[in-house]
């Protein structure tokens, strides 16, 4: 693993060259170099490190310099769905048009609650990105979707103004052997945001860090939909920073063959009367493997907080595996409620018998149960325009279930 990471960015000089080629201002070059310094100092992950334990694949990548072709238009992310009051541009363009906003977000990023070597790496080496800004009070009816294909190191910055309302979809369809993605979402007071992250890459390794900070009385619903990649590691950290803020975190994984998924979530309560709910589900076929680590953190300054966490794993074959680990870090007595639960197991015999007793054969009954397993999460997103596409992506896999 350490071997591979040092292949990607050989040194500070490489970082400076990348920044110069992208025509970046000095502050951004400095931020990259600082991130690289952090990256260098962080201990190299080993097989036993938390979060890297099951990283059993081999990377073979060429150095970053060969990858960065920022001036080739077909490599740009595609952005669909424009609405008044919404600005969606490449991040490098936003550095010019919104220098202060972007600088604040990048030079003073959200405090990383956990330290990731992969996070430092992407802060140092990102090549392209998207900037989305929704104006204060703007109610966006159409979902905004942007799709990354190339290059493989991306950085996304989403700023939603106070009282605004928007649905934003970030899709990843990278084909490079390695992908790294960082997303920062800043949500203003009273804003209502749905954010859907789709990981449908064909990468050998794909790493995503998503951080969100919520203002007062705002609400964020996130869905992480992961179906691609041989190995993927995803960190979703929600910082409930304003009083009364609310976060619904949803996750859906469909694993097949020898795919490995490693999800880490953080429900960070940092203000009074905040509420978080989490439902992460995985359906695992073949010899796929899902590992879930979910932290609920309720700080001293977050009285009357409410937190829920549920992780459900459906094993569709004898060789599929799932691990789940809840972690509670509660520093205050005055908590309204904090519960968590996890299940791992095959399709429930009683459900199966119930459906069969109504005339459905075993395959049809199993498919219906698995579809329902997903549908429950899609329904919670509450935007069928977005989830209908995701259901279509899963459908062929579910159709195949009867085949073995």
């Amino acid at each position, binding site marked *: 693993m350490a071997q591979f990471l040092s292949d990607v960015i050989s040194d500070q000089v490489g970082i400076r060259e990348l920044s110069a080629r992208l025509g970046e201002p000095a502050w951004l070059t400095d931020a990259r170099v600082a991130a690289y310094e952090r990256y260098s100092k962080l201990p190299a992950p080993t097989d036993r490190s938390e979060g890297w334990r099951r990283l059993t694949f081999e990377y073979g990548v060429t150095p970053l310099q060969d990858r960065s072709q920022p001036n080739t238009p077909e490599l740009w992310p595609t952005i669909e769905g424009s609405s008044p009051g919404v600005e969606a541009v490449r991040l490098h363009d936003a550095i010019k048009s919104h220098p202060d906003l972007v600088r604040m977000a990048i030079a003073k990023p959200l405090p990383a609650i956990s330290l990731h070597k992969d996070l430092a790496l992407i802060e140092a080496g990102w090549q392209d990105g998207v900037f989305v800004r929704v104006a204060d009070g703007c109610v966006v009816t159409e979902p905004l979707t942007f799709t990354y294909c190339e290059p493989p190191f991306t950085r996304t910055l989403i700023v939603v103004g106070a009282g605004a309302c928007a649905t934003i979809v970030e899709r990843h369809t990278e084909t490079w052997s390695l992908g790294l993605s960082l997303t920062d979402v800043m949500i203003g007071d009273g804003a209502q945001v749905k954010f859907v992250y789709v990981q449908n890459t064909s990468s050998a390794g794909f790493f995503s860090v998503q951080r969100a900070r919520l203002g007062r009385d705002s609400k964020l619903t996130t869905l992480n939909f992961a179906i691609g990649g041989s190995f993927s590691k995803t960190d979703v950290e929600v910082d409930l920073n304003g009083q009364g803020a609310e976060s619904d975190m949803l996750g859906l994984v469909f694993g097949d063959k020898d795919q490995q998924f490693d999800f880490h979530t953080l429900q960070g309560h940092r203000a009074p009367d905040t509420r978080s709910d989490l439902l992460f589900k995985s359906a695992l076929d073949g010899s796929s493997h899902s590992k879930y680590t979910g932290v609920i953190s309720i700080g001293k300054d977050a009285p009357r907080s409410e937190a829920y966490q549920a992780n459900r794993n459906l094993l569709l074959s004898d060789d599929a595996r799932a691990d789940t680990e809840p972690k509670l870090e509660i520093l205050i007595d005055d908590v309204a409620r904090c519960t968590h639960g996890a299940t791992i197991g095959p399709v429930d015999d009683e*459900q199966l*018998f119930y459906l069969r*007793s*109504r005339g459905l054969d075993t395959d049809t009954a199993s498919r219906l149960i698995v579809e329902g397993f997903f549908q*429950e999460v899609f329904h919670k997103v509450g935007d069928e325009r977005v989830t209908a596409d995701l259901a279509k992506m899963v459908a062929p896999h579910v159709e195949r279930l009867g085949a073995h």
Partner: protein
Amino acid sequence: MADLILELKDLHVSVGETEIIRGIDLTIERGTVHALMGPNGSGKSSLSLALMGHPKYRITRGVARFEGRDILEMSPDARSLAGMFLCFQYPSSVPGVSVANFMRNTLMARHKGAAPLTPAKFKSLLDGATKSLKMDPAVLGRYVNDGFSGGEKKRLEMMQMLVLKPTLAILDETDSGLDIDALKVIAAGIEAYRSPEHAVLLITHYQRILNYVRPDVVHVLVKGQIVQEGGFELAERLESGGYDPFTKDLVGA
């Protein structure tokens, strides 16, 4: 010759190593309603689950025929498609699967995967069933039994029976836990289903529902054996005297 729907001879059912049903004979003719009464733990639910083919309830000995076919050779789905139906006492919930979607699948299974009805006819079929059971039409969009109250579950079981129109309906304590208004609705559903073509095995602990659904035959099941058979007057006797006399008989025997 009598038109036999269900024929059980010396039927034994085990769960794990424990024998629950210890040799019963039961014959149900087309067009009749049979009540199977018994105290808790007598094996009523085990019998119904075994008849429907639940893998944990194994028929270890005896004969079980539905319309002359040996059901021991049939999967639960084959039994259902042949015309058997169980109103579960405790039906499973299936989160994420709406009642409408579930019903569409059950009807498709009866038409070899083809859409059996036009959307309009499908809707009117379901609407009719929910209406006759005084159910909120919104139930069709809810997930099967997910978050349903006890009474809502019973009605959904009945609704499926009315839509699927099985030949034999086995009702496993469909009356339990219902208030009198709900009980009347369920009883009206059973009466609506009752016909010369159909047969009912109504499993119950209490005589109460039999005031609304008059059975042709009453069987008393105690400790896995049928200890008494008779007409409606037997149910009335149970109401006043309870199951104790039968339990004692069995101990004495």
